């Protein structure tokens, strides 16, 4: 496989066996009564890493952060921070700060006082506190709101105060629970980049919870995909997208077509997958799929080409008709119904203003893709 490393910067301690992990979850389980919120989970996070926890609502993301911050103790398993077992260490003695999903702003304090709270606790000199608070207010663009109380702010403004308050102390590890959820698109994108800058410049370790996959892909060095309290995959954004390890991960991140079938032929590298209707797909990188096993071939819409004439020379070609199409400006998404009835999504970038052979509803169309355009999933 070609390298799918971190694009953003050359930072990949997880590939270095000698690198010492900074945060370690070791077989951590957390139960609330009978309910298992986190299930025998192991994770390693490295110093200065921007790590994202991605998962559906209720999969245990906040619970993980709360255990790291010290509000909940694991039912079993260990959490190590910089080599030290964190069990029994109260939250106020951990070098970890958390931005709460509910913000948890102090309602009786102004924005300024909220941000200064942790700094005062540290015993920082007044002049330094004022300077730091001013910096933080600038970062989150709330300079004019310094004297307001939380109840006089909008949801997005509150979220930014919560962010500023947690960043102000410049903790070794910053835990952010849905830090940008309430912001509008533009502000969210700006703040994403500011967070990344901040993290790089101060050399902090960030653990960010989000259920916005785009946000996770933009910011994180690595992403952990969680489901029902378990880790499904931990990898760089590119790996998660291009080389998902399971149907769940492939389906969770981005759009995907899942073509189910059985492995008809298997050589060292290539394989042929036979669908229910008899259509065959030739693939490379078949991974650990053994002959005869049921697998899914997962392919992203943008890797499928749609044409009105049968293309020559393509490894995989399938015939169908245009079932639906959506013109999105920058691209067009085609829903093509194949002979066996399955609908495949394909997207085409509208790189020129006028297309030569425009496809329309119910037109006959061919889809084609390269043998390495998708991945074979056994799980």
């Amino acid at each position, binding site marked *: 496989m070609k390298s799918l490393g971190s694009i953003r910067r050359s930072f990949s301690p997880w590939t270095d066996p000698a690198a010492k992990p900074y945060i370690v979850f070791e077989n951590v389980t957390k139960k609330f009564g009978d309910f298992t919120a986190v299930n025998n989970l192991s994770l390693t996070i490295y110093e200065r890493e921007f790590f994202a926890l991605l998962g559906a609502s209720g999969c245990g993301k906040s619970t993980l952060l709360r255990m790291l*911050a*010290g*509000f909940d103790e694991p039912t079993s398993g260990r959490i190590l921070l910089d080599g030290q077992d964190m069990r029994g260490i*109260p*939250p*106020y003695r951990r070098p*970890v*700060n*958390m931005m*709460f999903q*509910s913000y*948890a*702003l*102090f*309602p*009786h304090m*102004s924005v300024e006082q909220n941000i200064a*709270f*942790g700094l005062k*606790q*540290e015993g920082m000199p007044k002049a330094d506190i004022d300077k730091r608070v001013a910096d933080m207010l600038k970062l989150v663009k709330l300079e004019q709101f310094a004297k*307001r*109380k939380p109840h*006089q702010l909008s949801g997005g403004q509150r979220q930014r105060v919560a962010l500023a*308050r*947690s960043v102000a*102390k410049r903790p070794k590890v910053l835990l952010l629970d849905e830090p940008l959820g309430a912001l509008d698109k533009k502000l969210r994108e700006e703040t994403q980049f500011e967070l990344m800058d901040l993290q790089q410049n101060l050399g902090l370790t960030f653990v960010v919870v989000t259920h916005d996959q785009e946000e996770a892909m933009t910011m994180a060095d690595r992403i952990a995909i969680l489901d029902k309290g378990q880790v499904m995959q931990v990898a760089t954004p590119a790996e998660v997208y291009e080389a998902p390890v399971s149907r769940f991960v492939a389906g969770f991140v981005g759009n995907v077509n899942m073509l189910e079938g059985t492995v008809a032929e298997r050589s060292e590298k290539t394989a042929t997958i036979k669908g229910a209707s008899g259509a065959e797909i030739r693939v490379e990188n078949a991974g650990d799929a053994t002959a005869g096993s049921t697998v899914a071939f997962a392919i992203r819409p943008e890797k499928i080409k749609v044409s009105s004439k049968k293309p020559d020379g393509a490894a995989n070609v399938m015939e169908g008709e245009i079932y639906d199409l959506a013109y999105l400006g920058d691209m067009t998404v085609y829903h093509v119904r194949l002979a066996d009835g399955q609908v495949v999504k394909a997207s085409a970038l509208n790189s020129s203003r006028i297309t030569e052979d425009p496809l329309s509803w119910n037109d006959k169309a061919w889809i084609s893709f390269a043998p390495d355009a998708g991945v074979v999933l056994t799980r």
Partner: protein
Amino acid sequence: MAETTLATTPSASQEAVPQQGTWLAALTGRLVIIIPYAWLLILFLVPFLIVFKISLSQTAIAMPPYSPTFDLAGGISGLWESFREFSFDNYLWLTEDPLYFNAYVSSVVIAAISTFFALLIGFPIAYGMARAPATVRPLLLMLVILPFWTSFLIRVYAWIGILKPEGLLNQFLIWTGLIDQPLIILNTHSAIFIGIVYSYLPFMVLPLYSALEKMDYSLIEAAQDLGCPPISAFWKITFPLAMPGIVAGCLLVFIPATGEFVIPDLLGGSQTLMIGKTLWNEFFSNRDWPVSSAVAVILLLMLVVPMMFFQQAQAKAQEQGR
């Protein structure tokens, strides 16, 4: 003048005409505001004015035992005659006899000390209730209110049985060997404190509970997360946020405790001087309605004026917060 009136009339009538619905809504809106004011007017201000009027009168051997009484038969001039008889003599009298001053001061001191203890005991109770699982909170709340189902008087009498030298408390303490002589609690200030704290504790606990229950526990977590140990987090977060409850609870205990009559009379013995008892004596033993009315008016002013200042200060503080 006439011109302006004429000019404004049409537009004014235009404004007044609009649909009946809004007019009705405006009226009901107004009514809703009027109800509490009417309540205050009828049940507070009018009785207060009657008491105030009596306090300006003189004692008389008559029924009612003061003069002048308004006699509408005398017409306007008769009323005017009555008015001219009013004087502030009774208030002067209050300043001349130190008994009243001492009674006021000792009432306030006793009420303040009792309020402090009620807060000290009530806070942990309210805190525990607010932090209890949501399913048991209604039960706890009921337990706090439960004593109200028994007559107040009976409960205070019961304390005599507990506190008297051969009472339950002393028997118990002697039985455990902690003391060999019975403690004298009944007919002392301590008994009054115990009685007031016991009787008014629910008034302290309920507002505290409602303030604490509203508080989001994640605020404490946030404070701890920012490096604040639990005790310090209590003073910096819990305490200020419970302040409205603390103020309400303290006022609800302090105000009735200041004028309390039954508890000092039953538990405090004859030595204790409290304004409620003084008032009772003036009214029933001396049958001096005017002086007892003056005592009541002063007591009211003593409590209302500081409260008004306090409220104003609070309103200002809130405004500054904005």
